């Protein structure tokens, strides 16, 4: 699905021009922000697959992720990192996309386990999405089935270094090329797929609206989009089961 030539590549040594180029004060401020950002990362507490079983050892006493300033966080609104730990079934992928769009920028996606890279050992499964990169911009992959806690921590250190150097900004890619990601999502979920977040308006707000933000898929979205209703959950139960008194 993804044409490899369209994926933006950032060379390891290349510095992205920051906003405050030239202005010393602004540059110092940017560097300070990047430093603080890289040292207090909150990781969303969402275990999507088998890789999640290696995260408790990585978080607790033995490998102790907290010494890097990384802590689990229960709500997507306050989280910085979305860890996709393992295979994503179609049903999970919908929740991942909803969660990702709820998170505040800057946000980073890490794909753990081989299954997020290319489907892993479920390459022929009818129920899983194969390449996470098609649906979300992924900052880093940690391959392995499953990666050891040391590998997870080494990957997170790499992410910290990338954030520090301003190289990890693939969340911008989601706004710049929203049409591409939306197209892949529509191909999987059907053309009626929509999320509560208005990504196009956010792209305008962040100043990331580009020529590839809109396209045929966003046109299709606007055609099918229904106005957001007050959310109503249907349990599908006629009567409450015997409530105790």
């Amino acid at each position: 699905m993804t044409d490899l030539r369209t994926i933006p590549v950032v060379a390891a040594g290349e510095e992205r021009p920051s906003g405050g180029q030239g202005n010393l004060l602004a540059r110092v401020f940017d560097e300070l922000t990047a430093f603080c950002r890289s040292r207090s990362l909150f990781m969303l507490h969402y275990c999507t697959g088998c890789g999640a079983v290696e995260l408790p050892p990585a978080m607790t006493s033995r490998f102790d992720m907290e010494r890097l300033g990384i802590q689990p966080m229960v709500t997507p609104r306050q989280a910085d990192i979305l860890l996709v730990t393992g295979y994503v079934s179609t049903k999970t992928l919908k929740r991942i996309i909803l969660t990702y769009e709820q998170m505040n920028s800057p946000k980073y996606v890490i794909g753990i386990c081989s299954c997020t890279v290319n489907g892993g050992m479920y390459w022929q499964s009818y129920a899983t999405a194969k390449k996470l990169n098609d649906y979300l911009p992924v900052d880093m992959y940690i391959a392995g089935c499953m990666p050891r806690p040391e590998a997870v921590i080494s990957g997170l250190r790499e992410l910290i270094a990338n954030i520090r150097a301003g190289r990890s900004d693939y969340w911008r890619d989601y706004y710049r090329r929203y049409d591409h990601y939306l197209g892949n999502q529509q191909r999987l979920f059907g053309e009626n797929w929509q999320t509560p977040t208005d990504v196009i308006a956010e792209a305008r707000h962040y100043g990331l609206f580009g020529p590839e933000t809109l396209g045929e898929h966003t046109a299709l979205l606007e055609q099918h989009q229904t106005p957001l209703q007050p959310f109503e959950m249907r349990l599908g139960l006629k009567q409450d089961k015997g409530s105790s008194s």
Partner: protein
Amino acid sequence: MRPENYQAVSHPPSHEYEVFFGPNHPGIEGNYALKVRLHGDEVTAARADGGYLHRGFEKLMEGRLWIQNIALVPRICVPDPVPMEVCYSLAIEALGGLEVPERAQWIRVMQLELSRIAAHLFTFGGNAATTGMYTPMFWGIADRDLILDLFEELSGGRVYHIYNIPGGVRRDLPEGYLKRVSDTLDYIESRLPDYDNLMFTNQVFVRRATGVGIMTQEQALDWGVTGPNLRATGLPFDVRRDDPYLIYDQLEFDVPVEEAGDAWARTLVRRAELKQSLRILRQVVARLPEIDGPIRAPIPNPLAWNLPLGDVYTRVESSKGELAYYVVSNGGDKPWRVHVRGPSAMHAVQVLEHLVTGARIEDVAQIMFSLDACPPEVDR
């Protein structure tokens, strides 16, 4: 719901609301969700929402060779993978008429019991964390890691060790391995009083767990619940004792039973089972050096291995309950049909819905963890 703390209040209608409990919620065991309808803080209806981890295992296994599926099966239950490998191997051996050497059987039992201890330590941690006690979680996971180190030394994998293959085990024990197993057992045994002080006699936990999520023995039998959850209702049924496989009939162990059937009883049964697993492992470590011989029965070329026509049902006792495989062969090199009886599928969907209804919202996570549900095994 703790009866002594609860007084029924008549709420205005606006106190009726519905919330999602999961899938990204720290009180949920993995990728699983519950939708609950609340009246105040009391749950009046609940609907389990699984399927987030569905990978179509039973279909995938039909497309792969008998031997290839060995790499697939441990993924069905992530925290407790060894029973999956052993049960599938037992099925193939029964179909192919393979005789497993005695030494391999003893090594398999050692792996099974180590895996059970690891899974129970993991569950204790999660169970305590749902009541706000995070120290048992840190301790349990750190102690579990020592067992994962043993697995790693033997098979190269911490979590998934494709170590049990049809016909026996992959390689023999390294030099001094039994000594290291014995040392780890000593350490875990010395930690048990600490766990008792911290968790099993701690009123913070005892009062939260007593009387929560009660299941009677009739209900448990009707719903097909097995394992520690069934034994917590007073029925001493254990596949290891009642339908012995491998060499369990040569070992001495008790089947711990509790009567109450609530979350506290389920936790106590697991605590007692941990001790029995240590007892079994002591016997295995003592006996294993005497048992010599091959570790693997010779199997034909696994890439062109046609098993004879037939079907077989094998079961083992995993840490969650009775795990079984129903395998049908049509004489080919691939299974014609595989059905996995994941023990959690029985108690993590309908039973959980039933037990949660009438409980209070803060006890929902506690009930789920005390049932020791394993979502990947439910969805498969």
